[in-house]
């Protein structure tokens, strides 16, 4: 499989607007080339699952999309707006990056909540200080969001006093608070004890069901198959195979994908 773009839906023409388009993305750390020309398009409402072995470049790809990592080459278009890059891939316009980042909410493997702030403060931080939402409005919405992820009553608790699953759900509330046009999940359940994985997946499943655009790096194959409408298999910095979950999981073409799937099964 060597198609240039990974249009998520069926062969007939898809008119949904593009949320994220990545074209020819390269990334090297020194001599180590981690991404070797990755192209991918997610349209509004797509749930794209990114799978692959450790070190295949999944996190790096996700992090290049919001410029936590500076791409070495390639093109990144968010909601139709191309990110201006210098020839070396570094962002040409920091203000543009900051604006685009507010539309791409990221959920991290290690939650990365701000530990000196309560859950409520974590959730209102970006709306109030970056997006300049009036505080009262931001707080009311934050309470709704915390309730939605099952954390009503914990608004004034500091993250360190919560379980990993609760922290990750709070991090998802923080992500929703910016009303993102797309969400980036980097192995949101990998740091969790097995019995806490379910509660976080439930929240993500609901978000998928309501039509949120998501890029989801995950090792939970069953979950990927269930919520994603497109699956991308990354192997050593290239997209080795991609397609609808039923095909990628049910009828894998490449030997490597077959091997990978049997190793994680």
């Amino acid at each position, binding site marked *: 499989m060597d198609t240039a773009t990974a249009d998520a839906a069926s062969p007939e023409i898809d008119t949904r607007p593009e949320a994220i388009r990545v074209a020819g993305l390269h990334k090297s750390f020194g001599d180590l080339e981690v991404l070797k020309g990755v192209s991918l398009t997610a349209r509004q409402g797509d749930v794209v699952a990114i799978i692959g072995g450790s070190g295949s470049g999944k996190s790096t790809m996700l992090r290049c999309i919001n410029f936590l990592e500076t791409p070495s080459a390639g093109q990144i278009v968010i909601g139709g707006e191309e990110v201006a890059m210098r020839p070396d891939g570094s962002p040409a316009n920091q203000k543009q990056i900051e604006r685009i980042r507010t539309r791409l909410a990221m959920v991290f493997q290690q939650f990365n909540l701000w*530990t000196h702030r309560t859950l409520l403060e974590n959730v209102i931080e970006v709306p109030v200080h970056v997006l300049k939402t009036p505080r009262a409005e931001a707080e009311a919405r934050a309470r709704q969001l915390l309730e939605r992820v099952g954390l009503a009553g914990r608004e004034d608790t500091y993250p360190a006093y919560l379980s990993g699953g609760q922290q990750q759900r709070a991090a998802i509330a923080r992500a929703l608070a910016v009303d993102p046009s797309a969400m980036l999940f980097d192995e949101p359940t990998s740091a969790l004890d097995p019995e806490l994985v379910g509660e976080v997946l439930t929240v993500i499943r609901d978000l998928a069901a309501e039509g949120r655009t998501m890029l989801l790096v995950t090792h939970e194959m069953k979950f990927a198959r269930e919520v994603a409408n497109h699956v991308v298999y990354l192997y050593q910095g290239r997209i080795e195979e991609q397609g609808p979950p039923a095909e990628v999981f049910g009828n894998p073409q490449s030997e490597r994908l077959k091997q990978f799937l049997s190793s994680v099964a």
Partner: protein
Amino acid sequence: MTGLLELLGLGASAELLSLSGWGGNLLRGLVNSLQIAFGAFGMGLVIGLFGAYGKLYGGKVTRDLLAIYTTVIRAVPELVLILILYYVGSDIINKISAAMGGGRVEINGVAAGIWVLGVVQGAYATEVLRGAIKAVPTGQIEAAKSYGMPAFMIMRRVTIPAMMSFAVPGLANLWLIATKDTALLAVVGFNELTLETRQAASSTRAYFTFFLAAGALYLMVTLCSGVVFARIEKWARRGQPSLKGGTA
């Protein structure tokens, strides 16, 4: 204090220490000392914050200059530094004044003391804050970045509050050093607590009384600071479960 001294049969000492006499001088010296310590500590914090950020994120030249600054200041004995900085400082001010057609400038003792000790404190604060900033989990800064916070806002809203718990113990030490380093300013004739004490002692020959009183005053400052810093530390550590295991 007076009652206690009376009780110990130190009535004469109590009289010597009366506020209208030498005791008042001592207290004025203490106020001067505290003013300088406070100013120098504050100046040190500002220098330290810039210094720490410069050392961590600055260009090569910035980092080299800061390395020279912190190394030299921490290597040379404070007393020597104070003499150098004091005389260099007043010399420069007088040269500038002369160049602009003015006469000799009377150097304000408090301002000079703050400048001299502030430069010294800045070097130590740079190291304390650099360590504290480095101890902030990178994930918290990445989260702030990924939500579109500009660099200065990240520093103000995330890095500084998050590093506080790591910085406060070191800063508390620096503050205590600042209060005691004010005594070194006696060498340049500044009327802080130690010089006042020496003058009172030599005028009255009551060395024991006055140096004991000065010692008590320094001790009091230290004890009060301890209380204040304990509170600050508690606040800075909000959100971190205590090592003994506490409640939310």
